[in-house]
Structure formats: C-alpha cells, structure tokens
C-alpha cells in the first residue's frame, strides 16, 4: 500500500498498465514531456519513451480520431482531453466512431480506448473549466462512462477501463484531485494523505466497471451520487442527522441498477445529486429508472439536486454548486414528503 492523491493514483494506474502491456499508449495536450497540466502523466514519457507517451497538437478531434485508428490497429490508447469542457470538437469522433466501431463492423474492428477528462466545478473554473458533460456520453450507445471519487477507486477503475475491450469515458473530478471536497469552501481541505481512501495498493488491481459502492449504509432514504457529490452528500447527511444510505455510482454506464433498486426498496425514498445541469441530466435517467423499478416502495417523490440550467458561472460559484446546505434541504423535504 502507498499514500496517493487522486492524481498519483491515476498516474500509477497508467504506469502499471504501460509497464505490463506494450500496447498501452498515452498522449494528449501537454501530456508528454511536461507530464500534464494536472501532473497525471508526470514521468511517464521519461520511463516509457516518446513513442509510448507523447505530446499532441491542440486538436481534440485529432487526438480522439488518431486514438481510434490506433485502437483499430490493436493498441490500447489512454488519451487525455485537458478539460471535459473541451471535448466538443471530438464529439463526432466519440459518438459516431469510437462508440460504433464494434457495432457497425460486426466486431471486425473494435475500440479499446480510454478518454480521460478532468471534469466538474467547485474550483472557480468558470464556464469552460467546470462542466460536467456526462449525460452527453451516457446517452450514447456503445460508450461506458466512469466517474471515480477517490484515489483507490480511481486507480482500480482506470486499470479496468484500460483493460476493457470497449471505449470508456473516464471523467476525473478535478476538485477531488488533491483531497476530498464536501462543498464547504470556507473550510480548509483535508489532503488525501489524511483519508482512508488515499491508501492505494501498489501494483495491479482492478475494480469492476458497472458496480456501485455503498459508502454509507442507512435506512431513511437513498442518496445517489458520484464524483464530488459523494462528499457533499456525506456532509449533508452528517449535518441533517438523517440516516441516509449513500451510493457512489462510480460507473454511470453500465449502471448498477441492482444495488440502487435494493437500497430504494429498503428506504422508500430517493434523492439524486449531481453537479451537471438539471434538464436531461443523468439524474433524469436515474429518477426514471428508480421510479420504474421501485414504484411501489416509494413513499415520496424522487428529488434531484443539481447544477442550475445555466452555463457554469464564475463569481456565483457557490450559488451554483449544489453544496451541503442545498442537498440537506432536499433530504429534509424528502423525509417530510
């Protein structure tokens, strides 16, 4: 075991996979010599050479498009889009190509590839360094979408993603890179070194894609969250004293509906929390699925606490970000409903 931040855990996952599989290549903007603007690829070029880890031109479509070609050849590219906010130029390649290669060629060509993207807000990133575009991926058949919330999960899930035979969108909440964050921006942040989940095994291990994690057991209601919102939900639960069960989804597609449904059938209540905007966000899918699977167990309407339906603002960061107070109010309302 070793103490790692989420950045180090992600770097370590790539290190482990590059070490054991020569077909794993890592590239993106500033990813090579410099080691990434968030340090997630630091040292990899030095260790594995310029043809395994390299800098790319500033062209998201080019990065994803070439990676698809490499994957079709038989490599396992693990590429980086510097911010999820900048994936849009590559969206055609992701949706029309990566996601459909296997289907449209009846398995002749496949796309074992990971696209890493720092995601989420809470860092005064403004409109183009804060977005949470997961619903734009979960809506696409053929993609898997993963959002880790801690170093241990990040490494295990990223190794699984790299080994996975299908394209995986790996969204890394950059707010969590250095330590967990519960939305209390006025308090100092605890680094991962002081957190249990900063204990990360060295070497190779995996966590299954499509398996949620119950991070707090409870009986009063079920909170469905992922990424930074896992910690916000924990704070809200602690502050309201409601005995909630908190589920960290970890993988959005494929979704662990069994764990979700079992919890809601037990608690009878459900609150969905995400940073992304409300309308047609992934919360809508979660609410619909819970309603279908647990209708007769539900004792209250399913509530969603999310970002507002606006672009992510700068000055109004904490009015936008769904913090513990807003989540706490939803928990109380759901209990009273």
């Amino acid at each position, binding site marked *: 075991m070793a103490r790692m931040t989420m950045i180090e855990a992600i770097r370590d996952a790539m290190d482990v996979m590059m070490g054991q599989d020569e*077909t794993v*290549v890592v590239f993106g903007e500033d990813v090579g010599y410099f080691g990434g603007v968030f340090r997630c690829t630091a040292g990899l070029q030095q260790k594995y050479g310029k*043809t*395994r880890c390299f800098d*790319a*031109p500033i*062209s998201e*479509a*080019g990065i994803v*498009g*070439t*990676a*698809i*070609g*490499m994957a*079709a*050849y*038989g*490599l396992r590219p693990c590429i980086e889009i510097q911010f999820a906010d900048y994936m849009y*130029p590559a969206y*055609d*390649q992701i949706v*029309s*190509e990566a996601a*459909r*290669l*296997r*289907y*449209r*060629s*009846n*398995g*002749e*060509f*496949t796309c074992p590839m990971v696209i890493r993207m720092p995601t989420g807000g809470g860092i005064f990133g403004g409109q183009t360094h804060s977005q949470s575009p997961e619903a734009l991926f979960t809506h696409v*058949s*053929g993609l*898997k979408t993963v959002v880790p919330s801690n170093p241990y999960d990040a490494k295990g899930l990223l190794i699984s993603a790299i080994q*996975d*035979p*299908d394209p995986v969108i790996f969204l890394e909440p950059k707010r969590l890179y250095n330590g967990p964050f519960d939305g209390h921006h006025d308090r100092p942040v605890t680094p991962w070194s002081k957190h249990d989940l900063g204990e990360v095994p060295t070497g190779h291990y995996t966590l299954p894609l*499509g398996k949620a994690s119950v991070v707090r057991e409870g009986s009063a209601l079920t909170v469905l969250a992922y990424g930074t919102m896992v910690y916000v939900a924990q704070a809200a639960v602690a502050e309201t004293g409601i005995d909630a069960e908190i589920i960290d989804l970890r993988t959005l*597609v*494929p*979704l662990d*509906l*069994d764990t979700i449904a079992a919890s809601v059938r037990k608690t009878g209540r459900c609150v969905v929390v995400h940073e992304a905007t409300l309308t047609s966000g992934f919360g809508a899918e979660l609410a619909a699925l819970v309603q279908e699977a647990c209708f007769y167990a539900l004792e209250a309407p399913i509530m969603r606490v999310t970002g507002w339906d606006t672009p992510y603002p700068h000055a109004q960061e904490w009015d936008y970000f769904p913090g513990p107070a807003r989540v706490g109010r939803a928990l109380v309302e759901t209990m009273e409903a």
Partner: protein
Amino acid sequence: MSEPGPLSLHVPEPAVRPGGTPDFSNVKIPKAGAVPRPEIDANPEDIRDLAFSIIRVLNRAGEAVGPWAGLLSDEELIEGMRHMMTLRTFDARMLIAQRQGKTSFYMQHLGEEAISCAFRKALSPGDMNFPTYRQAGLLIADGYSMVDMMCQVYSNARDPLKGRQLPVMYSSKPHGFFTISGNLATQYVQAVGWAMASAIRNDTKIAAAWIGDGSTAESDFHAALVFASTYKAPVVLNIVNNQWAISTFQGIARGGAGTFAARGLGFGIPSLRVDGNDYLAVYAVAKWAIERARRNLGPTLIEYVTYRVGAHSTSDDPSAYRPKTESDAWPLGDPIERLKNHLILRGAWSEERHKQAEAEILDSVIAAQKEAESYGTLHAGGKPSARDMFEGVYAEMPPHLRRQRQQAGV
C-alpha cells in the same frame, strides 16, 4: 485598387448550370509524360510544382509515355481492366436492384473506377485502407466476395454486418478495408492514427486515407494533415476530386486554393496531383507514395482529378444542378476506355476480347447476384435476426441491453 465601400460576400459558382454548354476550358491538362518523377526521398520544398500539375501516363493516342510509365505488365493491366469492368458492372446491377426495390439505397463509382482499383494493386497484404463510400474498387481488386458485398447491400440473412449498416458501408478487415462510416472525413484522421500505431509498434504496414473533394472542408481533414505531418505517419492521404459534392461544385470546398493537393504544402507534406482516369498514372503515383510511407519517409498527399459521371447516389438527380452532358465533355475521358485503347495499342487486347470479357464479367456478377438474392433482399426473404440488433454494442451485453432485448421479445 477600388475605394473602400460596402463589403460584398463572394459565393463561388460553377462555370455552367443546367441548360448551359459544358465547359472545362478552365481545367488545365498537361501533356502525358510532362511531369517529372522525383526520387521518393525528395525534399517536399523541391517538388511543390507537383501539387499544381497533373501526372499523366496515357496520351491521347493511348500510348504510355514519360517517367511514370512502364511499371505494369500486360497481364497486370488486363487484370486491372477486369477489376474496373467488374466494378462498373457490379454498380450497374446494384443500381437496377435498388430501382427494383431490392434495397433502399446505392452509390455507384461510374468514371472513378481506376482510382480505387489501381491503388489497391500498389498496396501489400496487411496495409489498411480507410475508405469513403466510393472506393469499393479496393474490395473488388482484392478479390473480396461479390456475394458478400451484395448481401451487405441487400441487408439479408447473410449480410456480414447483420443488417446494421446502410448499403455500401462495407467492412472487411482481412481485405484491409476499414469499416465505412456515414460521417464524412472521420476516417481520414483515424487512418493517420492507424499509421502512427504501425510506427509505434515498428511494424512495416502502412495506412491509406480516403476523402472526397467536398469533405476536405471538414475539420477532421485538417486534423489529419496536422497529425500526419507532426508525427511523419506512414500514411497516404488520398483526395478523390470528382468535381462534385452532391450538388455542390468543388470550388465551394476548394475556395481560393488552386488545387486540393496544394492544401498539403502548408503542412510540409509532399503533394501530388494525378489523372484519376489514367489507371497507369494512378498506379505509379500510388506506388511512389506507398514506397515513401513504407520507408518511413512520411506521408504523401495525392489529389486524383476525376469526374463523378453518375448521380451522387440513388437519391440524387444531377440534372437539377449540372448540365446533362457534362460528363461527355470531361477532358480526361473514361478510365476503362482509355486503358482499353492502351491495351489494344500494346497488342494485348482487342475489341473481341473486350466484348468477351464484358460478357464473362456480366455472367459472374449475375451469378453472384442470384446467389446473394437467394439469401434475401431488403424486403423479401431471409433477413438478420432482431437479436442481432442488440449484439455488438459492447463486447459483453450489459444488463440494460439484456432487459431491452427481453422487452423486444427476441
């Protein structure tokens, strides 16, 4: 220079519209044999002229002349002839089949047969093409089963793609033919990535990217050139300039650039322009570029100058936007006629042998069609299972798809 006044937008127009007299006087056609053949390791700066000329081998008389001539034997040329004739016959049969309602859609290659057929012959086993929907000659010239191609067009029970894809969107890994996408230009940059992968793995295989004149305007075209140039990827970047993108003449995509080949120069990529209706010239230039890629000398851009004689697709009527007789006026003629004349001049072919070949090829295409139709057509006979619809989205079917398949009752 005029005084500043109100600005006005320039919207290019083709020289002639329906009702007008076709006019290609603006297309400068150099004499066959006039363009030099540089060494394959030539400095791109030194061969810039090749992006503005047209490499041609066959002259008006049907003779093969100049430095790009002399690469193919009689037997090889006759084989190339048969490939082009097969593709044309295949197209004609599938066009009729579409009109008969046996499938929903078809796209033919009429006038462009030399490009994909000759290029395929210059590749080696293991090389990978990233084609558009108008390079089926790559499959025909590599001996891919016409029955399988037709089954794909018919989306029948034997369709290799299980009825999931629109007609002509073939895929055949064993034949170095990457799965075709409806989204234009996406494969251009993927080809560069495939070539980079081959280089990363110290392999000896090269990639060939394909795009039409219209699609060079897509951003993926530019991304492909940047990446190919930056990493010196072993890729041949092919642009088939058939003058038309559905109803839009090539000037709309080309803008102020003299040629599409010239696009490569700004990226430091050696760029050549070739007579796309000259089987010998296409082969010679393809061979040159493939050799460059194979020797790790980097990418080459090739513009094939040709003309889309047929409609864009079975859903298109070109008489709505261009003169009906425009293809007759096309100065580079017909690729099959030109090779035929050349072979006759060489004493390797004759009108009789041509007629005989036509009859044989028609027989073989009809036989393939009969077999393909025995497995069903789009609306009749065998078809892929509805279960196939749910397979292959992922390597392993996730729970939500299993539930949906159950709901669909299949």
